């Protein structure tokens, strides 16, 4: 479900390091997952998605891993840059809602220091 009343956890990394942001989801029927990046004062931007019939998907500098057994999703950012500093949200789109609404995770704030 949605965790909208919680302060965001923060992950601090050095520029050039790899970052791993984790997300647990609750609905075992969820079929589709998305990672979003939200910079301060802006709307969330789509980063990468993955369907439940996949374990891994790669994009440019980003990789999403899906572990359906433990209902866990992670976003890996390679060679993290200061421009990657933002809040990252995972979202699940449960098939049992007819793909009609996204359910967002709590979000993680990523701070990249030079």
């Amino acid at each position: 479900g949605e965790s909208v009343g919680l302060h965001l956890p923060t992950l601090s990394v050095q520029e050039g390091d790899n970052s791993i942001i984790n997300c647990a989801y609750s609905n075992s029927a969820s079929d589709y997952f998305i990672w979003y990046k939200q910079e301060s004062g802006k709307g969330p931007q789509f980063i990468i998605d993955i369907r439940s019939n996949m374990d891994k998907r790669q994009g440019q500098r980003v990789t999403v891993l899906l572990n359906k057994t433990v209902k866990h999703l992670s976003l890996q950012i390679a060679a993290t840059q200061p421009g990657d500093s933002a809040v990252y949200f995972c979202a699940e789109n449960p098939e049992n809602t007819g793909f009609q609404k996204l359910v967002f995770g709590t979000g993680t704030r990523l701070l990249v220091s030079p």
Partner: protein
Amino acid sequence: SQTIHQWPATLVQPVGSPLSLECTVEGTSNPNLYWYRQAAGRGLQLLFYSVGIGQISSEVPQNLSASRPQDRQFILSSKKLLLSDSGFYLCAWSVVAKAFFGQGTRLTVV
């Protein structure tokens, strides 16, 4: 390509005043439309979603309402704003499953 427009970007309103935020989508037909609210430093709370003209689903009881008078227009309203209505309001659209967001409206109720 598809675009989403949301306005105004910022808004300061007194308690008890009405509210109307508008969102329009271009370049797609029959999208699912959403209104989210985000308190400072927190996650996204789904307020309303719509799968078609005149079809509105409300996720949480609140002081707000939504309407969809046209296929690509989604409006968030209130008759009398409360202090607790302050926040960052985001409109989004989706077709199939992936959602795309507008740039948001920061509402401050004073």
